[in-house]
């Protein structure tokens, strides 16, 4: 649970999606405010009181990308997640280039959305605090970001370059769910759905290295969502 209740602004013109989002996010412990067009969204966002904006891309009045541009131009840095039915690779990249912190294609699973929201908040918090950390630790797992070495319970573990990046990403979001698409986007910089179990295979290899010969599992599968690096099961 977040220490302070975080406030999320939902800008979405489809009332059923908006209600679905508001209900789910409220249950997840967020304070939610909704509006249904880009102008209202811009007006509300300009107050700068929100911790996150979730905006549809196609909105009446002012589209999501233009609204985001206006918000950024007004000097408001509130993290923004774009939701859109436009799902091609180029659409996603355009959304991110427009200043969105993340881009999620409709229809989405709620697990994917909350994982991405958690990741955004973690990034914001880190920006304030541990941004320059040179070491990460999760339980008995120690990651040296400068030397790019990993040890568990004092025993060194050999990882490939990509495996190290994967572990670093999981460790930065330790305790949170990280989805397959998030990893594909951040680790491999691919914005398409490869369709097969590519991420699972890489996670499987990483897991064997992290857990073989150790008593407790540390890299957990979260059914229907993704993976979580944590000492708690």
């Amino acid at each position, binding site marked *: 649970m977040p220490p302070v209740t975080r406030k999320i602004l939902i800008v979405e013109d489809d009332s059923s999606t908006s209600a679905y989002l508001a209900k789910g996010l409220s249950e997840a412990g967020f304070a939610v405010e909704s509006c249904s067009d880009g102008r209202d969204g811009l007006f509300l966002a300009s107050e700068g009181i929100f911790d996150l904006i979730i905006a549809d891309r196609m909105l009446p009045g002012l589209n999501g990308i233009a609204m985001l541009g206006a918000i950024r131009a007004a000097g408001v840095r509130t993290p923004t997640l774009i939701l859109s039915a436009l799902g091609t690779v180029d659409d996603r990249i355009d959304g991110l280039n427009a200043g969105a912190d993340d881009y999620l294609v409709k229809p989405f699973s709620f697990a994917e959305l909350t994982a991405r929201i958690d990741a955004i908040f973690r990034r914001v918090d880190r920006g304030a605090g541990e941004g320059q950390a040179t070491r990460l630790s999760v339980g008995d797992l120690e990651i040296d970001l400068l030397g790019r070495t990993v040890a568990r319970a004092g025993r060194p573990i050999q990882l490939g370059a990509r495996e190290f990046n994967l572990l670093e990403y999981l460790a930065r979001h330790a305790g949170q769910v990280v989805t397959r698409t998030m990893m594909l986007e951040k680790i491999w910089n691919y914005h398409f759905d490869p*369709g097969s179990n590519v991420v699972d295979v890489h996670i499987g290899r990483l897991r064997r290295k992290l857990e073989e010969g150790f008593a407790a599992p540390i890299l957990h599968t979260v059914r229907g969502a993704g993976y979580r690096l944590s000492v708690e099961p």
Partner: protein
Amino acid sequence: MAFVWKLVRDQAIDELRRDTVEESEGLVAIYRAGGLPALARTIDEGRANGDRSRIVAVIAADGRRVAGIGPAIVGSGAPAPTIFRIGRMGDSSPWLEREAGYAVREVGPYRLVSGRLLDDWEQEQQGIERALAAAMLLSLALGIGGGLIVTRYVGRRLDRVADVIEGVASGDLSRRVVNPAAGHPGGGDAFDRLATRLNAMLDKTERLMTELRIVTDGLAHDLRSPLARLRAKAEVAVLQADPAQREAAMGGLLIETDLVMRMLSTMIEITRAESVPRDRLAPIDPAALMEEIAELYGPVIEDSGMRFEVGIEAHPPQIVLHRELMTQAIANLIDNALRHAAQGGEIRLGLVIGPDEARFQVADRGPGIAEADRAQALRRFGRLDVARSVPGAGLGMALVEAVARLHGGRLELGDHAPGLIVAIVIPLTA
């Protein structure tokens, strides 16, 4: 016409002026050297050549001719010295009737008049005028005649194009303009080029229409089975009393839904790939692109119990590519090999750089495709019957084909002896 006439006239007068001034200066020089007798002698010698239009006269202060050829009396008194002028002079024939171009110079107490009557170049000028008029009439006639011929010719050529357009507009996309210059790039006239372009455009339109039909048919076909499964599983889930089993059934629903979603997004990607703006493409290192794919898929292939080999040419030139779509296309080829050639036990990823094209290849040791079936397989985007057993495989190949074309390239099937080798061939000039 008037311009040409004036040009000719100005040129003739210029020439006369030059000759006259030169001659008068020569005569003045002779006078200075030998006085009037020498001048008169020179003039008399010149007379011998019988040129009747010539005027060379020494005129006394009262206007009378003292020596030379010219009017007996030039006027009342000596003419004023002048470098060159055109006008009538004298009071008797033939000098009274015709204009002359002449110079008047002071030689002692006398005036030296030298020049030429204008008749011969005037005649020349009239000749030119007559010729010009005739030429104008002739060219007018030729112009009208030629215009009629060209109009009929152009009309006939354009009618052929218009017929084809009309045919296409009424739904017959197979119509083409008959074009003898086809196959000769740069050959033929503007009409042939128009025909070539029009035919190329129709080829593309027809291909797109066919493709759209295939993709739509394929999509409807491919969507039917996951939707049927989805429906069946939903039915089971609704009827499930036990909460744990219901949850499991719901999980199955999500998987089927994701499959349908993935097929839809692939189809959108295919239709978009036809119109991706060029600025989406950037020069990138093809070897790096292939290595990233190898890095991503290597473990997947090995985990499925197959050998994975990579053969990437070192130091290839940069190629203008859409990184993600190209990666997705090659990933689709690997996926296909994983599905259809697992028993072959080997997948080979290769990058081969030729003099003018790059080949991104995925080779397997599976059953392959018989040579006779390859062309048809390509035409139907790999929608072979074997592919039908796995939903969505046809769409995957359609995307590969669309991506190859987006880069101005093509998809090729070859024999890996044994096995299939699929290559996305991209021209290096693009």
